[in-house]
């Protein structure tokens, strides 16, 4: 819970009220080098890991993890860096999927068109909805986003002529120039590329002037405003970016699974996404992947507990938040750096 005590803290605004997590640390001067190294590492990992998969079931889970990581990345920008909370983000994910599905299945649009159009439309929607919503703060923002998420969920469930209702609807596969994209291995490749690109985008964003403005917003909105940063604009920008990422992931997942149900927009799903972000450490991009992985794999692993699955899951959450309040990755990273005595390396 300490405010950023160790290492190089080049120019970032210190944390405000004692409760907020410290703003992310950057190694002064070698930010770009660290970034490139990390991105290369990510690319290498993404290429190598599939060789460990014994059958296509593992590919399936991997695709799920990667797509969740993309959503988490966006949500992390919002929660971790900009300090805003959203308890309704699953709505963007689901709308991405449903939008592309409805355009393709009900109106005959080719999927290579329906997907980008849907994602762009959701970006616009996020901008429109975000402007009044982000005026709220703290718990009120939580309530507003929660309410919006619930409304989207109810509409998707009830408009069965359009959306197929609670049983969901079939989604045509993604096809480009007549070439149908199917099969776990191909989709693993697609998901990996999308994730890598998102991480590249996110890390560049963090270390740019925009990113510094974001961290100012998080640290203390008032202080930020005092030095002339127009808070509202940046908050909205981050909100839209996180919505775009969620919608993209949602649309891709829908085309991959061939099926989508309204439960994708449920409050529980939104909560799961927030947990993934917090788990891995707010303001820690690499944790995005760890968090998504852990939470996606957990149900698979918890099947051994059968009846006790929910209890164990709840218990794990509580314990993690108590012992790793800053998220697993930063806490471990801090322990590591404390031991090796050097400055922090992870962004």
């Amino acid at each position, binding site marked *: 819970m300490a405010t950023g005590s160790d290492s190089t803290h080049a120019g970032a605004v210190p944390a405000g009220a004692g*409760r907020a997590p410290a703003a992310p640390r950057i190694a002064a001067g070698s930010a770009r080098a660290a970034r490139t190294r990390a991105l290369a590492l990510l690319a290498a990992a993404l290429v190598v890991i599939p060789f460990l998969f014994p059958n296509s079931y593992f590919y399936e889970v991997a695709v799920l993890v990667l797509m969740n990581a993309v959503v988490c990345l966006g949500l992390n920008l919002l929660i971790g860096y900009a300090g805003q909370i959203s308890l309704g983000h699953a709505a963007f994910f689901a709308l991405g999927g449903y939008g592309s599905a409805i355009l393709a299945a009900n109106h005959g649009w080719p999927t290579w068109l329906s997907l980008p159009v849907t994602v762009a439309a959701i970006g616009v929607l996020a901008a429109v909805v975000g402007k009044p919503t982000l005026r709220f703060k703290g718990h009120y923002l939580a*309530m507003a986003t929660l*309410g919006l998420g619930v409304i989207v969920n109810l509409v998707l469930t009830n408009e069965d002529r359009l959306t197929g209702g609670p049983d969901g609807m079939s989604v045509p596969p993604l096809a480009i120039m007549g070439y149908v994209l199917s099969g776990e291995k191909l989709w693993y490749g697609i998901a990996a590329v999308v994730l890598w690109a998102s991480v590249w985008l996110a890390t560049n964003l963090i270390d740019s002037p925009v990113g510094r403005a974001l961290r100012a917003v998080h640290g203390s909105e008032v202080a930020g405003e005092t030095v002339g940063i127009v808070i509202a604009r940046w908050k909205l920008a981050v909100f839209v970016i996180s919505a775009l990422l969620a919608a993209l992931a949602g649309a891709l997942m829908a085309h991959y699974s061939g099926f989508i149900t309204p439960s994708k927009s449920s*409050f529980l799903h939104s909560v799961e996404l927030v947990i993934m972000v917090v788990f891995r450490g707010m303001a820690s991009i690499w944790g995005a992947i760890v968090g998504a992985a852990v939470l996606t794999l957990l149900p698979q692993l918890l099947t051994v507990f059968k009846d006790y699955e929910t209890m164990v*899951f709840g218990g*794990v959450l509580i314990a993690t*938040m108590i012992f790793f309040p800053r998220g697993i990755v930063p806490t471990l990273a801090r322990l590591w750096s404390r031991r090796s005595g050097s400055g922090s390396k992870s962004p």
Partner: protein
Amino acid sequence: MGGAWLQFVASGLTAGAIYALIALGFSIIYNTCHAINFAQGEFVMVGGMSAVSFVAMGLPLVVAVPLAVAAAMIVGLLVERLAIEPAHGNDVVTLIIVTIGVSLFLRGLAQVVWGKGIHALPAFSGTDAITFFGATVVPQSLWVVGGTVVAVIALGLFFNRTLFGKAMQATAQNTLAARLMGIDTRVIMRVSFALAALLGALGGVLTAPITLTSAEIGVMLGLKGFAAAMLGGLGSFAGAVAGGLLLGLIEALGAGFLSSAYKDVIAFVMILVVLFFLPTGLVGARSGDRV
């Protein structure tokens, strides 16, 4: 349509009373612990389900009900000691996750202990409907509304007339100052949780005869109670009650006159509209945006 209109109001008030109790629980915990307790709905569930168990064991309702409420209070205390206190001092999002974890844990535990089925509690005083001006209510509805009224009055007296209650108010207004004055804020927090659990469980046992109960009911109830608390103004006592009743009425009237399919949407839209114009809720929150 006089009878129909009155019918909607009657069912709206009954549901609203429960939302009010849950919203009060939210507000109390928010005030003293500065946390949103997403497990509030589970207190309701524990109350109802415990009562069902005690009745199944052969205890008369008169004994089962207070026992169930007491059981829920113990659960509340345990939650505070084991989950909230260790996590105290962290930021908003962390605390929210912890309470979500608690909610999941309690739900999972309930499924293991009580199974996944649905259960009914016998009505306190029979099921013969009472008619007035074309609307009918079951006697249990009167218990619900009456019980809520009594609880609200008792709570008010507690906060305003007793030393401990005033200490709680002091803690809510300024924790540091309260501690400096010698108030043990940890005890305050524990009592808050016990109190919230009591209110939730009371709601649970009062409505179980009407709404049935199962291990899963906590989720939606918690959500709606939270929405009601926000509507009235988080942290405000009167706001919680007003918010709860209003939410119940909006739901029932919306279902009756507009669309039964979309009544929940109507309710949430209204809440968002209210929050948009009155950002701190109807009655207004206690703390402003501290600089």
